[in-house]
């Protein structure tokens, strides 16, 4: 992931599996938050250049909600959670128990609902990783931005000190009733942290 880090296919598979399990756990936490059944499509994890993740979500100017949290403890990294605009509105409606279509923009309340949802979903995502690796992971407070995809994603990575060419992207789709929530978890870590996770899981 870093300049001097080569990810072998075997390691890549381990990391993808970690991502998939994390996304599954996030779906479970969303269901318990809503008190409703939540279905999850099989998550798709891949190491992708940032540009490909951006293209896959609709391009640089696509409006998205982005929640980012810093991971500390046994490893150091960043979790970025992205929703497309419509999904973020639907998620707010679900969480506030409003009819779908009620939310059409993100005010202060909607933003704090989304931050909190991001916090809970990424928390569940990471607790799966934490229990699999038996590592102690701490999360910072979530930061939210709603703007152009290119602007928020590049800024989150660069401000966190990650100028990586490739990021682990986990495409996740939740469905509750007829509402679909399309989202992406993006996980970035320094090479040492990646190595630690892989070593814990490959023995």
């Amino acid at each position, binding site marked *: 992931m870093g*300049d*001097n880090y080569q990810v072998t296919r075997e390691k890549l598979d381990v990391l993808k599996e970690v991502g998939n399990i994390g996304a599954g756990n996030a779906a479970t936490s969303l269901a318990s938050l809503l008190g409703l059944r939540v279905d999850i499509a099989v998550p798709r994890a891949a190491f992708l250049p*940032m*540009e490909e993740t*951006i293209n896959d979500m609709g*391009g*640089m*100017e696509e*409006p998205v909600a982005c929640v*980012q949290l*810093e991971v500390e403890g046994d490893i150091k990294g960043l979790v970025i959670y992205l929703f497309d605009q419509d999904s973020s509105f639907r998620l707010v409606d679900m969480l506030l128990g409003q009819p779908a279509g009620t939310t059409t923009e993100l005010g202060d309340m909607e933003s704090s609902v989304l931050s909190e949802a991001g916090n809970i979903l990424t928390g569940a995502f990471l607790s799966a990783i934490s229990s699999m690796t038996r590592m102690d992971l701490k999360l*910072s*407070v979530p*930061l*939210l*931005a709603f*703007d*152009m*995809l*290119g*602007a*928020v*994603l*590049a*800024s*989150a990575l*660069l*401000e*966190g*000190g990650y*100028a990586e*060419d490739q990021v682990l992207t986990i495409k996740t789709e939740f469905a509750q009733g007829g509402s679909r929530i399309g989202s992406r978890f993006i996980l970035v870590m320094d090479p040492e942290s990646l190595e630690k996770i892989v070593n814990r899981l490959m023995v």
Partner: protein
Amino acid sequence: MIQKSLAVNDKFQQWHVGIGDYKVASAPDTLITLGLGSCVGVSLYDPLRKVAGLLHVMLPESTAFNKVTNPAKYADTGLPLLVKALEEAGALRRRLEAKLVGGAQMFSGNRNSMLNIGERNVTMVRHLLQQLGIGIKAQEVGGNVGRTMIVDTATGIVIVRILGNKTKEI
């Protein structure tokens, strides 16, 4: 390095400048770079030759990295590349006018560990332009919004677009 227009008649070509990339074009074409957050778009324009260059800077300094695979990512290595490409296209350095867009801080509620890359990018670009003897004609920097930047090589006008398709000329 100069991008020749493939267009016919009065149609013009729009050249896309990616993240950590630069391009040079001449009238009547336009240059565009999308979704600048903490990144800074730097356009340099020679009004006499009607040739412009656009650079999408991600980080201020290449010296902080062991291996630099893409010099256009960094202000300190990218700007000289852009100036060189413009000179090869017939522009004169002393005639160049700079416009700066971007350098925002997208996430509010700063964490101590976070770097204000946007501000550092803008500071570095200003410093380098001064060293190169290139004046800044206009800028739309800072704040907390994402911006798209379009450079018209016929006039040197830069259009800044934000979410909701709101535009502003600088």
